[in-house]
């Protein structure tokens, strides 16, 4: 009985992913233990969504997604704090542009190698950006992080809205993340999205079908960087600080863990994974200081025994994930 109801619910969610997302995250801040956690789930879910487009749908494992998250964050932060851009929208736009250009350049280099080398290269280039940000202290604040990002009211048709209230900020992020989720759905449903999944399943056959798979992969990489960059820009606004660690390998690792916990290659996996990770970290850190140890062990258990992740396992057997 309960099982049947759950199946019908998951089937409806699978058939109407964007609508489900809109409904669930509209009430989420009132369900979450506290509001700032809800905002973090949105932002890191978006970051993981970008990673998932590349790994889950295209089959390319990036171990350096901190790069695009960090570029988005620094781009937005530097535009607002150093260049004194007066509009939040323009600041976010500059952050997105930085992430996209960074994604295109790094993607070009990394895609010269396939398979396991790709993962190593993405990690290496992300670490290079970390060192650059670390040493270019005049621009980035170096080790202290980029401080003093002003949170201007956003200009909307018919007035402006202050984002200082946490709930207002949540719904500001919510609107942008909903647009990103709808954008992802559009990408996946397009012929381009079908080629991505063809590359994941069998790249040789995709070549034989006449697709220029390097171009498709690069485009997927750039879209992925775009989503990660938006997440970074939003996080810079949420914190009004960009810590230099946002480019560190541990940030890349976080998004890998989130996505795999939730379920790589599933539509909601990234958000399920982000929520699981953040709540786990929140609870665990009360009891033990070495909470990443526990996360590492849980992650290993998932790789070994639950490779589909939480959402992938729950919805296994349903058509159209």
């Amino acid at each position, binding site marked *: 009985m309960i099982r049947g109801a759950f199946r019908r619910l998951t089937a409806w969610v699978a058939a109407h992913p964007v609508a489900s997302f809109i409904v669930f995250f509209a009430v989420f801040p009132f369900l979450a233990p506290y509001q700032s956690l809800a905002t973090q789930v949105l932002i890191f879910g978006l970051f993981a969504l970008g990673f998932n487009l590349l790994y889950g749908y295209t089959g390319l494992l990036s*171990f350096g997604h901190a790069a695009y998250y960090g570029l988005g964050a620094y781009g937005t932060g530097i535009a607002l704090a150093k260049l004194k851009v007066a509009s939040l929208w323009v600041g976010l736009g500059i952050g997105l542009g930085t992430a996209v250009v960074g994604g295109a350049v790094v993607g070009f280099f990394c895609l010269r190698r396939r*398979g*396991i*080398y790709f993962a190593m290269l993405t990690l*290496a280039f992300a670490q290079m950006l970390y060192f650059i940000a670390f040493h270019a202290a005049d621009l980035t604040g170096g080790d202290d992080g980029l401080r003093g990002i002003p949170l201007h009211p956003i200009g909307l048709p018919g007035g402006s809205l202050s984002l200082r209230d946490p709930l207002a900020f949540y719904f500001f992020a919510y609107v942008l993340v909903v647009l990103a989720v709808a954008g992802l759905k559009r990408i996946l449903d397009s012929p381009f999205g079908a080629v991505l999944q063809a590359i994941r399943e069998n790249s040789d056959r995709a070549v034989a079908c006449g697709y220029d798979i390097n171009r498709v992969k690069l485009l997927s990489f750039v879209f992925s960087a775009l989503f990660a960059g938006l997440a970074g820009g939003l996080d810079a606004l949420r914190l009004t600080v960009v810590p230099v660690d946002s480019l560190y390998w541990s940030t890349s690792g976080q998004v890998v863990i989130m996505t795999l916990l939730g379920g790589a290659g599933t539509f909601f996996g990234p958000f399920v994974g982000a929520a699981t990770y953040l709540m786990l970290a929140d609870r665990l850190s009360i009891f033990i200081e070495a909470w990443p140890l526990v*996360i*590492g062990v849980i992650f290993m258990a998932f790789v070994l025994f639950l490779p589909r992740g939480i959402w992938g396992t729950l919805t296994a057997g349903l058509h159209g994930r």
Partner: protein
Amino acid sequence: MLDISLQALAAQVFTGLVMGGILVLMAIGLSLIFGLMTVVNFAHGSFYMLGAYVAFSLMGLTKSFWATLVLAPLVVGALGLLVERLLIRRLYGRSPDDPLLLTFGLSLAMVEGAKLVWGKIGLTVDPPKQLAAAVDLGFMNFPVYRLFVIAVTAAVLLALWLFLEKTNVGLIIRAGSRDALMVRALGLDLNRIWLLVFGIGIGMAGLAGVLAGPMRGVYAEMGVEIIIECFVVVVVGGMGSLAGAIVAGLLMGEIVSLTTFFAPKLAEIVVFVVMAVVLLIRPSGLFGEAGLAE
């Protein structure tokens, strides 16, 4: 004035050789394990870190650097065998991404585990008294310990080469990395060979950690830092190529060391620039075969 800076430059070249040697010890193990099992061991750096910590503790117990130098790599290698048996073996036959992900999780756990056991603050290790002095090489003074590290690295590489080229087991290892299916068809038990190679590779990482401790200090994040450098080395040298690992490892050691001398701020960045250039000119790496395990 010129004399002094030439001396400093020579010292820096030697230091590059030492750091390169450590990278070679690491990258060869990584490459050997990958060549045979297509497993990229992200935790390789964490075993290096563990080697340094275990050496610190063993030094306290045995009061002997020489005993530690032999025992610590054995302890770390034995742990590597356990990891292969209990964790990595379950993933053979799955996508090569899966062992990489698994060992990433392991590495995260090991870093935090090391902080729990040995504390969050880095430790310093002194080189043994016999090697603590500096030796006059005629044109400069150089710490004896660093010369010792170069000698140990060379000896281990020579032993490994003899093992791979001159023994039957070495022959099976080389054959297995060419064509595992064929070797199995000939009735050889590759599972035991895998275990052995994993143990050797991890043991070498442990040894690299023991040797690096007195020069670089011991801290929990040292492993992840060096694994990224090792990835650069195998991309530049060509994964699965032992000659590539040696040449690229020494090259990277020299590049970092010399950049530190001329432009310290760029030292951490320049290796990645070299990597990008190699990718543009020769995507399969200096010694790599195009298409190997891609």
